[in-house]
């Protein structure tokens, strides 16, 4: 409708119109809206078409709220004092002209002319200063018996007009708050009456709106999206709202926040950002994954949109596998995981993909010491946006510096990752999203051993707003991961080793909102296809025997329903149940064991075979979620969370190794699904005029059917893993403290966690009880963990961050002594995990320099520079033992053992 239509055209419109029915009524809140957008919105709502000259309405902003207002009245309001006139014809067309209303010459007998002469508009002060305006929402006659009313609308960006997902709408008296969804939609239920709402963009910009809530209504808000994305510390749905948020143990980080953290070699690393949150630790610097509340790394579900990412890192954990420009935000659920997620015991890390903007094609990128990235996004036609990004390394030059050391001349590190996301708005109610992610690593550090792995994820979803209250989404996705080692140490035992895993997923998610309830329900089906491991000879001379573990196929179905329920002003609950059915399918072959006896070679009683697609084993059971929040006062709340979880897929890992070589395995006849239960309570409070948020959470977890391994077990390529795996119970507990300051020039957080993570061989019959059946620390039991982040913003263009991390050294099983026994030299090891490697302590510093902020500049640039491990402390990442001249020697290896300076140039266009 931006097009200009000549009035002449109008004259020839064969208007077989009938008598005008002026019963069309409009509701909505139009805030600071350019006239053409207002028109679009009315057109959509009413089906009427507008005809006008764009130049006539230039600069006209619409600023009003309507509740069931006749279109004519509304337009009269809008056009008052503008010198514009309108005519509505019988064909549902609205004609807007300057100076005087048009006359439809042919119309006399056929349609009634709508003609309104509007009195000059009075300057009511409402237009320019929306902040001071009071918006009357709804009508008192609606639901007069209800004390509450629901306000909904869309938050969008002033600059780009695109919806602003993650924007926070908060009312600061009772701290009722909500977060805009991915379409920028929000809905908040408040007491009727006057309120001040604050709408906060992800960039940190806050905009107040005064409302007088009389009934249900709509208020669309446009707020600036901060151009200075690097200078604001804001949580997308975190800090401001922790007190009020119903869910406990959820931590959100905006990508801007992650970007300010000091990075290793300038690489912005989402996973490292997650480590600043209490309750999350990592077993080492260069390790894949992280541990949440005493759970192993495979107990975290890492989602990029709807895709499960099996390996979230490059080069064994040196770099995060996610391109920070392709991520819009990160949310970690570590307590009561939302009911629509399941299948992992510890946590869900939801990484929200970035989608393209609608206005223009632009991009961003960065050039660092070891890697560079580039992404481009923008519209593809009127209703489609795209974003593509890629990142690659050229770190070989660093390795080349070592070329003079001939032993290392074979080193090579190559990796890249890419994303491509599309969003297509079919119409106002339907949209399609396609997200994709791929990564590939190939590296070797000597000519003998090459490692390679790749991720490939694709997801397509269709979202539909079925009604104002009901929203649905169907997602189809495929996730795959593949790992290989090529060992060419000597021609005789050269080998290729590898494993892979793929899953196909179909899920539906529905969300139904009422005044007091927020219902989530849906279905999830996953098919797993997995090759647990193969080894084959490499080259003609190799005498390695070809070994291939049987492929595994499984399926998992879950139905879930959850309700978030606002009981009273102070009390809110959520309940959820998720029922999961898991089946392992043939072909498969299993040994059978004597009843009630441990799974040992001595107790093998026979063998069973299963044909293709025959059900080998079924496990099923519910996952329960319960959460409650009680507001003590306006500034503090108590929360409770209870949850049970199930997990059918296991990561087998050999912890005695320096490098993580893990492989995935499905639950089978003998390896049961891991079960977990967690209870947590928390106290949340804001102090100093809400500028500082303090919280403490206590948790207790119990886990069953975890895997540990008996003495001397070989984990890789083990055909009868049940004989070497020990059914293990786990227990963890801890207290988490967080102080976070979100405002002012000095911002930051202090997170301290005291927690323990213990394992114990279960009471099931087993050939061995680790540490004589006593509880022992898990591989990632690090009782003390402290992370302090402080950011000082000297000016809008210069800010500096200090990061401090401390944690107890992780447990280790040490070879303690040697002895002769049975005619050979043997090694005496201490009890499992009886000792610890030295404590971990590190300080990093970073400085971010922004270029000028002129909006119309061709490209916005910034520099990030800093020093990682400022003190140069050699924090052991790994301790390992190798025989050296007949004697076992221990080494501790520190990855980043000296201060590592970095500089990265970032740009946006």
């Amino acid at each position: 409708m931006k097009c200009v239509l000549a009035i002449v055209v109008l004259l020839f419109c064969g208007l077989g119109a009938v008598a005008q029915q002026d019963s069309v009524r409009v509701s909505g809140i139009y805030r600071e809206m350019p006239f053409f957008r207002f028109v679009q919105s009315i057109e959509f709502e009413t089906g009427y078409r507008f005809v006008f000259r764009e130049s006539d309405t230039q600069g006209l902003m619409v600023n009003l709220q309507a509740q069931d207002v006749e279109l004519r009245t509304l337009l009269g309001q809008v056009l008052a004092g503008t010198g514009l006139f309108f005519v509505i014809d019988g064909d549902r067309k609205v004609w807007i002209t300057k100076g005087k209303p048009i006359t439809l010459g042919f119309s006399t007998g056929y349609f009634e002319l709508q003609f309104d002469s509007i009195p000059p508009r009075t300057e009511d002060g409402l237009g320019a200063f929306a902040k001071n305006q009071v918006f009357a929402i709804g009508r008192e006659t609606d639901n007069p018996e209800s004390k509450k009313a629901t306000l909904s609308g869309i938050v969008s960006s002033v600059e780009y007009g695109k919806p602003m997902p993650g924007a926070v709408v908060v009312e600061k008296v009772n701290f009722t708050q909500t977060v805009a969804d991915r379409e920028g939609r929000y809905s908040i239920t408040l007491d009727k009456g006057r309120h001040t709402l604050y709408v906060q963009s992800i960039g940190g910009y806050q905009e107040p709106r005064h409302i007088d809530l009389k009934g249900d209504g709509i208020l669309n808000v446009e707020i600036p999206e901060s151009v200075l994305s690097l200078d604001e510390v804001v949580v997308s749905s975190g800090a401001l709202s922790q007190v009020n948020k119903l869910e406990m143990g959820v931590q959100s980080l905006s990508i801007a926040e992650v970007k300010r953290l000091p990075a290793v070699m300038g690489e912005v690393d989402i996973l490292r950002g997650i480590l600043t949150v209490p309750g999350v630790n990592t077993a080492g610097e260069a390790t894949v994954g992280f541990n949440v509340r005493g759970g192993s790394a495979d107990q975290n579900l890492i989602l990029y949109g709807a895709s499960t990412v099996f390996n979230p890192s490059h080069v064994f954990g040196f770099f995060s596998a996610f391109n920070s420009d392709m991520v819009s935000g990160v949310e970690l659920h570590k307590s009561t995981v939302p009911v629509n997620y399941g299948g992992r015991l510890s946590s869900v890390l939801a990484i929200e993909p970035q989608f393209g903007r609608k206005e223009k094609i632009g991009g961003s990128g960065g050039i660092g010491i070891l890697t560079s990235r580039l992404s481009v996004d923008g519209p593809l036609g009127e209703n489609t946006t795209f974003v593509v990004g890629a990142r690659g390394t050229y770190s070989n030059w660093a390795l080349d510096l070592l070329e003079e050391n001939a032993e290392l001349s074979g080193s090579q590190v190559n990796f890249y990752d890419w994303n491509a996301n599309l969003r297509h708005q079919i119409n106002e109610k339907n949209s399609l999203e396609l997200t994709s992610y791929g990564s590939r690593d190939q590296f070797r550090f000597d000519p003998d051993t090459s490692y390679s792995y790749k991720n490939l994820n694709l997801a397509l979803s269709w979202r539909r707003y079925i009604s104002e209250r009901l929203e649905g989404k169907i997602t189809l996705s495929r996730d795959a991961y593949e790992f290989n080692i090529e060992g060419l140490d000597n021609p005789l035992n050269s080998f290729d080793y590898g494993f892979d895993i793929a899953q196909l997923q179909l899920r539906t998610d529905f969300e139904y909102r009422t005044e007091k309830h927020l219902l989530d329900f849906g279905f999830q089906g996953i098919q797993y296809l997995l090759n647990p491991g193969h080894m084959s000879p490499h080259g003609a001379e190799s005498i390695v025997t070809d070994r291939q573990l049987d492929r595994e196929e499984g399926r998992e179905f879950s139905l879930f329903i959850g309700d978030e329920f606002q009981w009273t002003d102070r009390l809110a609950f959520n309940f959820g149940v998720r029922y999961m059915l898991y089946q392992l399918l043939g072909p498969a072959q299993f040994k059978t064991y004597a009843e009630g006896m441990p799974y040992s070679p001595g107790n093998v009683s026979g063998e069973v075979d299963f044909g293709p697609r025959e059900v080998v084993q079924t496990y099923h059971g519910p996952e329960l979620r319960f959460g409650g929040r009680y507001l003590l006062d306006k500034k503090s709340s108590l929360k409770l969370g209870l949850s049970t979880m199930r997990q059918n897929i296991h990561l087998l890992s050999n912890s005695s190794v320096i490098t993580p070589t893990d492989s995935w395995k499905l639950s089978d006849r003998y390896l049961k699904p891991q079960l977990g239960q967690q209870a947590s309570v928390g106290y949340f409070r804001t102090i100093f005029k809400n500028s500082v948020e303090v919280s403490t959470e206590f948790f207790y977890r119990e886990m069953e059917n975890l895997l540990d391994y008996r003495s001397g077990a070989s984990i890789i390529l083990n055909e009868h893993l049940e004989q070497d795996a020990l059914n293990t119970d786990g227990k963890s507990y801890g207290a988490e403290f967080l102080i976070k300051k979100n405002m002012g020039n000095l911002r930051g957080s202090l997170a301290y966690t005291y927690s323990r993570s213990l394992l114990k061989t279960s009471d099931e019959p087993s050939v061995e009880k680790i540490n004589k059946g006593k509880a022992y620390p898990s591989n990632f039991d690090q009782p003390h963990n402290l992370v302090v982040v402080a950011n000082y913003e000297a000016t809008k263009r210069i800010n500096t961050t200090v990061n401090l991390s401390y944690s107890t050294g992780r447990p280790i099983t040490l070879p303690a002594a040697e002895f002769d026994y049975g005619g050979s030299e043997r090694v005496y090891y201490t009890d499992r995990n009886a000792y610890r490697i030295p404590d971990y302590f590190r300080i990093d510093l970073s400085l971010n320099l922004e270029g000028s902020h002129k909006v119309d500049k061709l490209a916005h640039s910034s520099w990030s520079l800093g020093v990682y491990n400022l003190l140069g402390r050699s924090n052991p990442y790994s301790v390992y033992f190798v025989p050296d001249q007949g004697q076992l020697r221990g080494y501790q290896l520190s990855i980043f053992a000296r201060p590592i300076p970095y500089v990265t140039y970032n740009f946006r266009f």
Partner: protein
Amino acid sequence: MRKGIVFLFLVLSLFACKEPFEPELSEANLRVLTVEGYLDTEGKPSELYLGYTRRIYGDNLGPGSTPAVGAEVFLESSEGNRYPLVDVGDGFYQFAQDIEEEGSYRLKILLEGEGYTSESLHPLISTPIEDIGFEKDERGVEVYITTKGSGTVEDFLWTFTETYAFSPKFVSPYIYRPETGEVDTRRPEETIYLCFRTLNSSDLILETSSNFDEGVIFKKPITRIIPGDERLSTRYSILVSQMALSPEAAEFWETMRKNTDDIGTIFSPMPSNITGNVSKDLDPSAPVIGFVSLGVIQERRMFIGVQEVSPWVNNLEAYYDCELDADTVSASGFEERFGTGVKFPAMAVFVESSIIGYRSALRRCVDCTLRGSNVKPDFWED
């Protein structure tokens, strides 16, 4: 493989750093008593070995083996009868008593003021070895045994000791006698061209009879001799000892078998935590390594002559660089050539029918006593 992983980090030594790691371990973990023994209950002399673990960290690690000497060791029956073991030195304690096989016993050790006691031990009567034999194929000779479990005895441990006769590369009956300066013919007790060498195998062979039909462990491989191995160059003998184990003992030995210093690679096994059935009296949680068993050790010996496996090529691996010196040493050169003992007369040089001198060779190419004993063992059957 392991090298590759180490390099992974070496390479990152732009940033990375590898330093020796020497943990501070409690004394209890550094010096642990080890107890090893399968005591025969029929009076056949059997030995118990007591030793200490030794440090692996730091320098000056001391001798390879640290026996625990001076212990008082006895077996005590549930009725209170004591059957002492005799200290035979170097940490070995000999047991040679015929004891009641129905009873239950505890092993008691008094050492350095500390008392150690085993769990209750029940003698296990092993079934005899039914058969011992060998088979030759293109991969060499495999020695096997066949045995049968019983209702009470299902788990077996086999160990074996091999003895073989061998000759050096150069068979020489000559000896240089420095006192006369002459080369003489060796007396029978001086011969150095046929020796006997005994190898104690460190292999632990375990099997459970209940894995097999009717409890028969049929042709269980004990050891394999690959083609060209010196062991079959002349005559070979193997003594296989069969010990019946309780399920707990079998588990202990299985863990011990997997215990290895091959750690640090992706295919390496998990560290094995070894304990056993002996504990310290005053501190039962203190580690003591070892599983003591009582029972009747069944033994079978077998001989294999080279003619039984012929053709058998001896690849003389131990003598691969042995050559005769080119020159002939005549009487005037004996002292100079043989006086130091480095070179031995290896071959006589005849002219017509009289010896004019000797070709010499390195001692190790002539003298088999450097690698074995020239005394024929008592059990040896030619």
